[in-house]
């Protein structure tokens, strides 16, 4: 235990005395952070998520591959490990110290980046910071292990540099860490599912944008942990103290063995496609999470009032404020301006009685129709034409539950900025949306509406609608 502590303390001191370690762990990410933060208008919201995930992933890759991998080779090449070899220690404290040091060095940087994002760009603190920190910890350990196994299977500095680049570049460019995944054609999205860094990008973005916890990212977290354990174990077994000890070229296959968890995960994803679906959801959510101010439009506020020339501020996908006239300076709001003079803004419309499951009418045997697919298509069409809330009655319970779960995961639809959440109508609402002349809703009647805020603003001038809205809010969980 003494040796573990002493080596960690030494590794930390050596790292802090090494300019390139400080540069790549701290300065380099900060430079990226500010350059991309400015260039991508991170203050408007969406870009901050991209910038943060990019900076974090570049940092983790560098920390693992260069910080652990290249350094381990350097110590061997410089005959430093040779001196350790004549002492009674095993490789374990050396490997362990490398992993821990990498982690200790990296975490302050994570806190720093989040603090800067919060203070300078107004990013709200993530709902589950602990999930993010644990996830990043697992990622660091996983990538340090990849770095160490890499050091274990190369015979020279040149080989290690070649191999590091071979891993680093695809991870950088095929993970969404640099080029956003929204640019990728479908076949390339499939490729990204084999790249460990992709899961780190979508994991961190999911935690930031969708308040995911660790549980939602269990697969990649497990794969990273498995990689870490296998990587460290094999690094221990293949550990070489001297540069003169060469290893056979086929040992490089161990690197593939260490990455096997991600090969399996990728293959599973080719089948399940949840990863790609999540990527698409994230892209949509990113696209709508920017802040923008629609100016100079005629606005139907929804309570009967009409503003002849007003502005609507949208932040994080929700209506934040409605102003008469031009509203405040968009720069002060960190908002993009959308000039809408001559146009009219309506609240989301509500269709209080429709049949999602029967777009063409009812038939004696509805089971012949793939209603779950047609439902999603109808919802998309509704949304496209400005209807943000629908109340569908008379649908098969199974089907409507399935559609509801798709919509509530934000995994369905893909047309415009606003994504319907989807609610089962509560019994107590019976009659709320019912027209005096309409028929009673069925037990499985459902209401689909846009985000509560939009839905709320979109309601008609009725006290009963207010009741309905509060009912919707209560069920929004």
């Amino acid at each position: 235990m003494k040796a573990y502590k002493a080596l960690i303390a030494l590794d930390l001191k050596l790292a802090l005395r090494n300019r390139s370690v400080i540069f790549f762990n701290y300065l380099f990410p900060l430079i990226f952070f500010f350059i991309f933060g400015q260039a991508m208008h991170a203050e408007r919201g969406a870009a901050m998520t991209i910038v943060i995930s990019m900076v974090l992933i570049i940092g983790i890759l560098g920390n693992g591959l260069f910080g652990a991998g290249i350094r381990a080779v350097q110590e061997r090449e410089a005959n430093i490990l040779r001196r350790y070899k004549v002492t009674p220690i095993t490789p374990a404290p050396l490997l362990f110290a490398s992993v821990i040091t990498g982690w200790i060095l990296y975490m302050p940087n994570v806190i720093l980046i989040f603090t800067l994002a919060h203070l300078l760009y107004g990013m709200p603190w993530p709902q589950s910071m602990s999930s993010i920190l644990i996830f990043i910890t697992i990622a660091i350990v996983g990538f340090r292990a990849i770095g160490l196994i890499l050091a274990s299977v190369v015979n020279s500095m040149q080989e290690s540099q070649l191999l590091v680049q071979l891993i680093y570049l695809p991870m950088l460019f095929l993970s969404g860490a640099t080029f956003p995944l929204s640019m990728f054609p479908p076949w390339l999205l499939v490729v990204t599912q084999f790249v460990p860094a992709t899961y780190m990008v979508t994991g961190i973005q999911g935690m930031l944008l969708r308040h995911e916890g660790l549980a939602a990212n269990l697969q990649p977290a497990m794969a990273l942990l498995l990689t870490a354990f296998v990587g460290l174990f094999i690094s221990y077994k293949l550990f070489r103290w001297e540069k003169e000890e060469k290893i056979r070229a086929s040992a490089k296959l161990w690197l593939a063995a260490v990455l096997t968890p991600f090969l399996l995960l990728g293959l599973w994803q080719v089948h399940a496609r949840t990863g790609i679906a999540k990527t698409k959801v994230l892209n949509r959510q990113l696209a709508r999470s920017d802040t923008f101010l629609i100016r100079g439009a005629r606005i139907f506020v929804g309570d009967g009032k009409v503003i002849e020339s007003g502005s609507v501020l949208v932040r994080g996908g929700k209506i934040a404020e409605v102003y008469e006239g031009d509203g405040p300076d968009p720069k002060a709001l960190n908002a993009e301006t959308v000039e809408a003079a001559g146009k009219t803004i309506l609240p989301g419309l509500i269709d209080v009685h429709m049949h999602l499951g029967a777009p063409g009418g009812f038939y004696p045997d509805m089971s012949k129709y793939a209603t779950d697919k047609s439902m999603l298509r109808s919802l998309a069409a509704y949304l496209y034409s400005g209807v943000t809330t629908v109340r569908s009655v008379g649908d098969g319970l199974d089907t409507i539950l399935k559609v509801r779960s798709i919509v509530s995961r934000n995994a369905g639809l893909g047309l415009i900025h606003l994504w319907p959440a989807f609610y089962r109508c509560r019994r107590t609402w019976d009659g709320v949306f019912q027209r005096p002349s309409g028929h009673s809703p069925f037990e499985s009647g459902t209401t689909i509406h846009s985000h509560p805020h939009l839905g709320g603003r979109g309601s008609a001038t009725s006290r009963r609608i207010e009741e309905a809205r509060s009912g919707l809010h209560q069920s929004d969980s």
Partner: protein
Amino acid sequence: MNSASPAISVHGLKKSYGEVHAVKGIDFEIQPGEVFGLLGPNGAGKTTTVEILEGLRPRTGGEVAVLGFDPDRQRQQLKDRIGVCLQATNLPEKIRVHEAMQVFASFYGRHVDLNKLLQRLQLEEKRDAFYSTLSGGQKQRLALALALINDPQLIFLDEPTTGLDPQVRVEIHSLLEELKREHRTILMTTHYIEEAERLFDRVAIVDEGRIIALDTPARLQRQSRNASSIAVTCATPFPEDRPAWAEAIHSALDCSGRTLTVNSRHPAGTLVDLVKWIDQQGLELTDVSLKQPSLEDVFIELTGKTLRE
């Protein structure tokens, strides 16, 4: 381990790297408190032998016991008890002297007082210096400090003075003599003859993976076929007619005629006889020197090679 058993015993030690046979069957024993030297040219198998005994590489064949441990099977226990100063090792550039000491101390079951060790190796002033700023001699002193950190009774020194300037070499020699006085067992390799002559209790001359001679330096020198040479210089030239002095093999006069060189197997007897004769001749003796064959001469004689080729 009782005190009578050897610190190191090696029987029939062999080491092959594929087709290359680096060590071809070596036998020797080192007693506790002995300073034992391996002398030989590069590639003779000295370092390989030492590294097998340190537990750094597995042997191909033979029986080896170091402090009663088998270096192949009881590596960790052995390493905890020995001190090693390797050829060609390094420490991280930005490690401070005292940090290196602390880290290495943490590797062992026990360690000496680090400040005293720094003092002993005259490194106190450098305790906060980075490794990269140390001179060659200071680096070597630090290497020796690290070798002594666990207070080992058995110390391996692989060419500890190679590449150092003479002044530093002398400093290190006096440290080694100190260790010798403390009855520590030392196994050391070198290719400096004067070092071997001065420090070693016994020396094994190694060539091409074999020990070709093993004895005290003095006895090896005496056994040499090469005779000692006595040079005498007088104020006036020697006469042409000279007798055969006791035990003398050969004599020669230099061009001035005043310096005479006499070769002998037993220089003591020859010298007495020679000086008597000079006195009888009424010559005035101005200088006498006696040169014994060096280990290097012995080495060249045995191997046909020089040590530093």
